[in-house]
């Protein structure tokens, strides 16, 4: 896990150095009981899912709470192949990799121009981009469906990627705008005096400087786009595909699996499928915990 050096840390060490007395211990008991209880409530569903994904359906039926007698990794094979998780996984990557790249590049361009240049209509464009954060995605779904149909982009991966990019603008532009404003102005001016064009200055001086902000924005957009459910549900179906092929992305695939599950009763396969979807996001969190916690609150606090 990452190390956190927040102001709270120092006060913690200062206070835990205090002698413990009976009264203090007694007041701590209900506090800790509650914290432990909530920790169990949080961890238990996840842990139970991972454990159950390694057991057989028979074991699950008779002792839902038991530990695996032996590890049944074939559940994962079944989920990956028969339940098409493998294909959902690949579909998700096909959409998310290019959309992540474009989201960062285009948002950085907009954020930079808005943060560093003066021009007419600037405030309007800024509010236009950031205003998108106010509305729940579902409101745009019906017209978006027809726009995509009209542009022949519905049921295409590149179409979905472009929609992800567009819907990622509000948060990403807002986040990077704040970041570009904190970068020193002199560097940009020096580069331009040295004869670099505006475009060169952006790509060779400012973008490398903005790297920490870009990484944080990338993590957020990865989580958001990896987990996206509403947009693909409206825009992607598997019409016109051969039997056994699918255009669904992971969260959509999980939904179909869950509905199918009621008839097939392949519990362990379902658990394995959920684990496959869940683990990458948990890993990203554990690796980037510090950045995620800081980045999440930046937007909210300054907004």
């Amino acid at each position: 896990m990452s190390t956190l050096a927040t102001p709270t840390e120092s006060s913690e060490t200062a206070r835990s150095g205090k002698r413990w007395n009976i009264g203090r211990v007694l007041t701590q008991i209900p506090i800790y009981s509650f914290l432990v209880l909530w920790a169990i409530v949080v961890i238990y569903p996840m842990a139970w899912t991972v454990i159950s994904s390694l057991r057989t359906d028979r074991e699950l039926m008779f002792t839902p709470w038991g530990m695996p007698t032996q590890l049944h990794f074939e559940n994962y094979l079944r989920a990956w192949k028969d339940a098409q998780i493998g294909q959902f996984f690949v579909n998700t990557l096909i959409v998310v990799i290019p959309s992540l790249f474009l989201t960062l590049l285009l948002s950085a361009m907009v954020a930079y121009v808005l943060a560093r240049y003066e021009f007419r209509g600037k405030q309007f464009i800024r509010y236009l981009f950031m205003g998108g954060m106010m509305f729940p995605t579902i409101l745009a779904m019906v017209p978006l469906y027809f726009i995509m149909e009209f542009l022949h982009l519905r049921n295409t991966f590149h179409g979905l990627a472009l929609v992800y990019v567009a819907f990622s603008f509000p948060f990403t532009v807002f986040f990077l705008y704040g970041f570009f404003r904190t970068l020193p102005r002199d560097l940009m001016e020096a580069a331009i005096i040295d004869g670099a064009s505006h475009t060169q200055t952006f790509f060779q001086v400012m973008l490398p400087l903005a790297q920490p902000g870009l990484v944080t924005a990338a993590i957020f957009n990865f989580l958001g786009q990896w987990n996206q459910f509403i947009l693909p549900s409206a825009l992607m179906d598997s019409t016109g595909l051969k039997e056994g092929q699918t255009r669904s992305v992971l969260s959509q695939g999980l939904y179909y699996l869950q509905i199918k599950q009621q008839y097939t009763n392949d519990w362990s396969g379902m658990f394995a499928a959920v684990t496959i979807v869940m683990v990458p996001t948990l890993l990203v969190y554990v690796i980037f915990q510090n950045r995620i916690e800081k980045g999440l609150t930046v937007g909210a606090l300054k907004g």
Partner: protein
Amino acid sequence: MRHGQKRFIFGFLFIPLLLYTVFVVLPYTSAILIAFTRWRGVSANITFNGLNNFARLAQDDLFLNALKNNAKVLLTLPTITIALALLFAALFTRGLRGQRFFRTTFFFPQVLSMAVVGVLFNFVYHPTLGILSNTFKTLGIKELATFPWLGDVVTVLPAIVFVAVWQATGFYMVLFMASMGSIPTEFYEAAKIDGAGEWAIFWKITLPLLRESLRTAVVFLMIMAMDMFVYVSFLTNETGGPGRAAQVLSSYLYQTAFRQGNFGYGTTLAVVLMMVVLVLSIIGLRAGSQETVEF
């Protein structure tokens, strides 16, 4: 230095603005227009329907039912989430042993997709295999050992609200911790010298200085309460629960537009939802914005 600047700005903004206009601005604005039409998705058959769609709302029991359920979520979700998040944040900023572990754990649900959370809680609430039933079985409470949490009119909505609380609390905990951490320690020291107890300090100093983040939290959570689409879809298989006891506006509009193909009326519902969200956001942002303490 001015040379080429205009072209540069235009060049950088053109593609992003085009994408944003086509895929975001256009859908939201046309949603408002479609709401005034009678349209079943076949483009030739789009007719102006004036305010009829809106008039129909008043007689639509399903709409009123969904609105009532949204109101229930609106009253419970922000309150419970903020209370829990405040409690955790207050405990952790006071420096508690093991706070790093608890804090990391409590944040976990935030990074899971709502879809994964939906599936997880279908397991949790399952009447025979589920975690909840088995907990009651182990505790020896027979009546609840096979209780269908998502199949009962009374429990289905609270069960779904709990899922939202479960996922959202970690985020607001971190949000509150960040702003509590930025309150100058002199404030606390001065209060202690004046003889204020922990409780008094929390109510009189911490909470008022958290005004900004509390407001953010209230607005975000109200928007979330008006949405709930993914949770309701997953936990009720799109039905809205037994007797539609968990049907909310977003899931009703999805049903109407995409399952029944009534796009005109579906979009009317969307516009109502949008207006409710806007009004709530404005109220939320106005409330408590009079006096902001600067430090």
